[in-house]
Every structure is written in C-alpha cells, then in structure tokens.
C-alpha cells in the first residue's frame, strides 16, 4: 500500500468532475475504510464494549470498591472466618449479602470483590504498559533493521533471533527470585520493583515478532518509487522512516497491539499463578492460585477471577481478529 503515491496520482488523474459525485466516491483513506468495516462487525462491537467495560472497572476500581463498601485486604481472620477457615458471611455456607457481594476469601476473610476490582486494574495496567513498551521497541528496531542495509541489519536480526530463542518462562522464573532478593530489605520499593520488573520482562520478550514484521514490510517498501524519490530529493532518513514508511504500516501495528494485549493479560495471570508475578498487589492470577484448592467447596472464589480473565482475554482476542480482518483488503466478509 503506497499510500502517499496513490493519493497524489488520484488527485491528478481524476480532474474535477461533478462535486456531488466526488463527495460520494472519494476521500476515504484505508484507515477509514477499515473503521467502517469494523463498525459494521457486530461481534467486534460487543467485544469492544466488554473491553471498555473492563478498562472502566480498572480505572475506577477505588470508586467502585467504595460504592460497594468493600476494601482490599480488609479481612480479619479471627472474626471473619469459622473453624474451617471458611467465611462467616456470604457464600459458600451462607446466603448472599451485599456486605460481600462476591463473598470473602477463606483463611484471611479478605473481600473477593475488592480483590477482583483491583485485580482487573493490575491486569490491564500491566498489559497496557507492556503492550505500549513492546510496540515502541518493536517498531523502532524493525524500522532501523529494515532500512539500514548491511551489517547493522544483520546485527539487529541476530539480536532478534537471540531474544526469540530465550525461553520466556524460564527467564521469568530465574529473574523473579533475583529481583525479590535484590530489594528484600526495602518492602516499599519491592512492591514497585516487582511491578516494574514484570512489565520489563513482558516487554523484553514481546517486541520481537512485531520487529520482524516491520522489518519485512520495510524491506518490501524501501525500493518503491516514492521512497526512492524522497531519497533523491535529499529527505533525511529519519523523516523517510517517520513520514513515508511508518504511515504505511499502521495496519500490522494495530493488529499486533490488539493481539498482544490479551496475550499479556494471560501472561500476567499465568506468572502470578506461578508465584513469580506481582506480590502484595491484588491480582487475578494470585487469586486463582489460592483458590484452586477450593474448586468444589467454594467455587465462586475460583470462578470470579477465572471469568474475569476469560471474558477479557476472549473479548480482546476477538476484537483483535476483527481489526485484522478489517485492515486486510483481501478479506471480504
């Protein structure tokens, strides 16, 4: 898609026909076309609504918790749990109560709803930051690798291959205790260090696919006439990359973002489940980890975070698929 070239051609060859007719036919960029197609996709719109819903929950978690009258880690084990360490109000042994709409956690008596709301926040925050980070890194490296010929391209490609060959899970497992022990004596720092390190781990292991994709696109575009023309005219490389090449790669970037968000949500939950994600901050993965033993005695405890992860990840994935289809001129649905 050589956008700028095509636009200049169409303006010249179309001349100035009837202005009414012109309004109907012209003036739609590929992005606009994609958005129109996306808007007409009902599944995509439902998924978008769900995703927005979760983002609102994440953003307004403290207000929502206050509205329900619940707080994080507010449980008192000796008064809130019975002899079996099960909650004394709400499920599974007692009827529903507004005091704890999702019940209390066994052992600690912490409120599950508060934990769930803040868990959504943790999940989305980490996934969003990681996505932005890995996308920026991926685009930058991909552009540079694709446009620079010779040794720089080879070095960058080698780095990309190296990162792709590192086993993500093993690296995460190895890094987690190092971070924990490094900041062991500073509990207040540790909390942030863990969040930041998790974001870094997810970012550092998430940029390679996009970088490769961008590099391939750049390789196919850089020999095109409009790029050659820009070069001949003496446009600086930085400007060629930003103004000529980047706009032509909006589609793969948007698709990559929409598909890496759900992957990061799932990865965050998975790492927390393994006990190497964020500690001390509410997280769906941690709740699942604690709740698996209760799958039959206290199913709600387990299902709340599982349903949260399920809907968010499915909605994000379906939305991502729809965006990809919308941006792909070859699919017709």
């Amino acid at each position, binding site marked *: 898609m050589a956008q700028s070239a095509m636009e200049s051609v169409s303006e010249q060859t179309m001349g100035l026909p009837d202005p009414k007719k012109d309004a109907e036919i012209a003036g739609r960029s590929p992005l606009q076309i994609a958005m129109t197609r996306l808007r007409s996709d009902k599944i995509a719109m439902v998924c978008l609504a769900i995703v927005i819903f979760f983002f609102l929950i994440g953003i307004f978690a403290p207000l929502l918790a206050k509205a329900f009258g619940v707080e994080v880690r507010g449980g008192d084990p000796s008064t809130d749990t019975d*002899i079996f360490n099960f909650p004394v109000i709400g499920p599974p042994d007692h009827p529903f109560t507004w005091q704890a709409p999702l019940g209390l956690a066994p052992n600690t008596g912490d409120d599950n709803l508060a934990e769930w709301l803040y868990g959504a926040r943790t999940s989305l925050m980490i996934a969003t930051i990681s996505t932005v980070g890995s996308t920026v890194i991926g685009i930058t490296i991909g552009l540079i690798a694709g446009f620079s010929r010779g040794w720089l391209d080879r070095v960058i490609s080698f780095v990309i291959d190296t990162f792709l060959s590192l086993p993500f899970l093993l690296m995460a497992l190895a890094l987690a205790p190092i971070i*924990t022990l490094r900041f062991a004596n500073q509990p207040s720092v540790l909390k942030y260090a863990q969040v930041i390190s998790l974001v870094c781990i997810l970012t550092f292991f998430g940029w390679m696919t996009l970088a490769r994709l961008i590099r391939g696109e750049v390789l196919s575009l850089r020999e095109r006439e409009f790029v050659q023309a820009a070069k001949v005219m003496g446009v600086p490389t930085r400007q060629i990359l930003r103004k000529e090449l980047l706009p032509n790669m909006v589609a793969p970037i948007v698709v990559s973002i929409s598909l890496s968000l759900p992957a990061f949500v799932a990865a965050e939950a998975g790492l927390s489940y393994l006990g190497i994600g964020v500690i001390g901050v509410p997280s769906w993965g941690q709740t699942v980890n604690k709740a698996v033993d209760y799958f039959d*005695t206290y199913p709600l405890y387990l299902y709340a975070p599982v349903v949260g992860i399920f809907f968010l990840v499915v909605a994000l994935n379906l939305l991502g698929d729809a965006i990809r289809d919308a941006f792909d001129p070859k699919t017709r649905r």
Partner: protein
Amino acid sequence: MRLKKSAVVIATASLLALAACGGGGDSGPSDVVPSQGEGGGAGAGKVPDMQGPAAVPDDAAEGGTVTIETLQSPFTFDPTRAYYTDSTSIMSLVTRALTQYVYDPDSNDMVLAPDMATDLGTPNEDNTEWTFTLRDGLKYEDGTPVKAEDVAYAISRSFAIDELPEGPTYQLQFFKDGDKYKGPFKEKGKLCSCVTVDGNDITIHMSRPFPEMDYYASFPVFTAIPQAKDTKEEYGNHPLATGPYMFKDYKPGASLTLVKNPNWDPATDPGRIQAVDEWDFHFAQDQAKFENTILSDNGDAQTTLTYDNITPPTYKKISQDDPDRLVTGTSPCTYMWYLDMTKITDINVRKAIGYAYPYVDVWKAGGEIVGLTRVPGTAILPPGTNGRQEFDVLGIKGENTDPEKAKELLQQANAMGFEIKFLYATDDPLSVAAKDQVVKGLEAGGFKATPIASTINKIREARSDYDSPINVRSSGWCSDWPSGGSWFPAQWDGSLVGLEGMPNQANFKEADADAKQKEILSMPADKVPAAWGEFDKWMQETYYPAVVVGYSGTAMIRGSKIGGMYNDAVRGMPTFANMYITK
C-alpha cells in the same frame, strides 16, 4: 528432631499462630469444634518388658497394598542420616533399632518398648555406661544373622558427619571420644572406642551422664549395619532390612516400594505386624489432587492415605462426610518467634511483641486449622513432655492478642515504633497472607513492621545467617525424645551462639541460664525432666527470648479400608507398624 521438610518452610512462612477454636460465628457450622482427640502426648511412657509377637487385629485381611501419597520427599533413607520425622517414621518399617516406640491404644500415646534389644538398656549408677543385650534370632533380609558388632559399627558410622551429614549428633556431645573420633571411613575401619561388644551385649560409654539414652536408642542410627556391606553414601538407596519390610524399588524424590521381608521373625518384635504385602510411597505429589482422591474413597483410594496435614477445605469435607477417616493427634513440635537477644535488648519490648502478635489471625491466614494443626500454648516444651509445667508469662493463653498492653509496655520501655524485621517467602501465598496479618497486628501494637522478602528456597539460609537484617526468626523445634534434654541444650545453650547454621536462633547467651543448664545435666536421671520443666518456666519469665506461637498437631486422612492408622505422637506421623487392610 527436625520438622518434616516442608513444614519448616511453612513454619517460617506462616510464622505465626491461632486462637481458640472460637471465631466460629453465630450461624456457622460451629457445632463441630476442632480437637485433637483424647489422650495424646509425646511418648513419655516406657514398657521395658513388652514381648513379641505383636497381635494382628481380627479384622485384618491378608495382604494387599497400601498407597501413601505425600507432597514431601524424604531427604534420605540412610539410617545414620535419617533425622526428619518422615524419614525416621518410614525407616521404622525397615530398619530396627535398639528400642522403639509402640502405639498404646489405652492412652492413645506412644510408649517406649524394646526392639532389637531385650529390654530398654541398663545404665550404670551415674548414667555413663549403658548396656543393651541383643535378641537371638534376628536376621537381615538376605538371611544372615544380625551380630552385636554390626550395631557397634552402625553407632561408629554415626560419627562420620563429614561423609554422612545431617543426622542426629547427640553422640558427639555425650559419647566417649565423641569429640575426637571421626567415623570408620576416616579412621580406616576402626570402630569407636565408645562401644564395646561382649557376645550379645553392647555397651556404650559416655563422656558425661546421659540419662536419656534409652530414648535416643530408638533412632535409626542404632540399627545394625554389617561393615562389609556398607556402601557409604549409597547405603540410603537400599538399607539392609531388619524389620518386617524391605526395599524393593526406590527412586529418590519420586517413589519407594516396600515388600515383605521373609527373614523377619514376629516373635522377636513386640511392636510391629506384617499384614500388608506392599507399601507404595509416592513422593512430591500434588496435595489437592491426592486429597480429593482419598476423599472420593473409590477403588484403590480405599487403601490410600496421606501423612501430610490436610487443608481447611478438605477438613471441612471430611468432617461432614466421613469423620472416621480423619486421624488427628498431637505432635511434639513448638513453633516460635525467636527474638534476637542482641538486637531486642529490653524485655518489655520482647514481651510487647508477645502481646501484639496476632496469633489466631496469622494461623488462619497461613491455612492452619486452629485447635487441630496448630494449638495455642505458652510453654516452650510441648504438651506430653516429661516434667513439663504449664505457665503463662503474658496471661493471654498464647492466643489472645492484646495490642493495648503492647503499647503500654512499649511506652514504658520508651520504644514506641520499635522496628520488627522478619522474613517471609514471596512465592508462597500462605506466607504472604500470614505476613500481612503480622504487619497488621504489630502495627496495632505500636510497632513498626518491616517484612523482609525471601523465597521458599532461600528462606532457611537467610534465617540461619547471623548477618541477616532481621531481629526475629520464625521457626520451631520438635522433641527428639519427650524431655527438655532434647530441647534446651540443643537450642538455648550460650555456647551455641556463633556456630554455623545458627542453632541458637535467639542468640540467647546468659551466664545464669548456662549455669542452670549445666547443673541440670549433672542431676540424677529421675530429677532431670522436672528440672527442665522448671527451667522452661524460669527462662521465659526471666528473659522471654521467644514468643511461643503454638504447638503442632496432626490431621491426616485415610481410605476406608485402612486399619490400625493412629497418630504417632512422637513424630506426628501414622503408626505404620500397626497398619493393615481391613476385610
């Protein structure tokens, strides 16, 4: 004795405690109150004249296979090195020692009885010489007879702590030449001069009085190992059986299969039966999975059991569905918060920690069942110990947290906001939950709480490091035998301060306490247990160097066809020697 491996981790993790089985709540199913059952103790009784064979119960079926599922993996099965409770308990089926603990149904406790020896040993007047007489008719699994020399060799072998580390070490302190003799490997086959053999008589010579040798003789260390067949480090992979079962297949860390030993004669053994054909131990299993298997009680699950303490949801299910399959009881371990005497120098601050510690909250958050797997208490010596005294220095029964009193004491000491630093494991959710409760409790009591992060793998190392930036250490200790003699000299002796591994975790070094201990060790045997009970009380009243955060308890489940499974109160394990499959 050391706690089961993972229990140590949990102790540090959930370094905290429980309150009365209250909490219940008005409408909860609180008609069931957790209790460890009648009786129970720590095996203080002795029956020197118990005779074999042990009776096989009427409802026992012939043969069958018992499956044992556990999340632990025993550290070793070398008789010389076995010191963790799971190892010593499983070993009791395979290697016989001079004495053994036998389950006594009348008291629901273990009693000390003879094993390979004909009685519980005869000390000389000042307890510096113990003589055990070996029974006739004892054989190894290969049919060769057991000789007194083999026992002497096994005892000598226990001095080889460089080659065979981690075993019990009382022999180094109490036996003659214990400080010089380095074991048969370094001494080119020479045996320890502390053991002499005369026919079937084995005499152990002490360097100082050791009145409790009969208890110590029940450790697997005091089995028989033929010198010619010792494979050193490999021996733990197939120790020669003298008991009713022998190794068939052992995959370290994964599984162990025991089959009948045809050369074991029931007439020589007052404590064991040989009813089942095979024992299948599966180590390092997933707890939720095997708990549910045993709960379901279908097929093979009927002959399956676990010796791990069950989780609260399983406790709830089993007490509603089939309480008979729940085996509970005491085990002689005390969990403590060891207060570093060099860093927390004011006794009022130390006592304030005891008042502020949120016992019940921490126990519950750590997944303990209050009153069952964690029992409140105030004395360092656990219930059932000989000569133990009940006392309550703080007057809160070891469970009623009193933050107001803590603040008052802190004000007196002019130490409001005193900083308490303790370890927790970030990768153990129960440890993290317990830590949250400790922080909450300490802050309510006027302290500043600084949890120091560690991981499951690193926490023991960090705890036994003198340079760790912590001033309390959460750990525990279990009786090696039911008297203070296996407690205070091992953990509270001033001479231990500074030693590798930090055995004296409170850095407790007080001249008058050391003098008292020395005096007790030289007392006549019959006065010793009571003196230790008195010392326990005196030490806590005078120095309060540790917050007792409860005693351990046992809560295990079994399939419906397993018979004879009781709680071995000495180890907190099932009574394997009594078990059979019912008809």
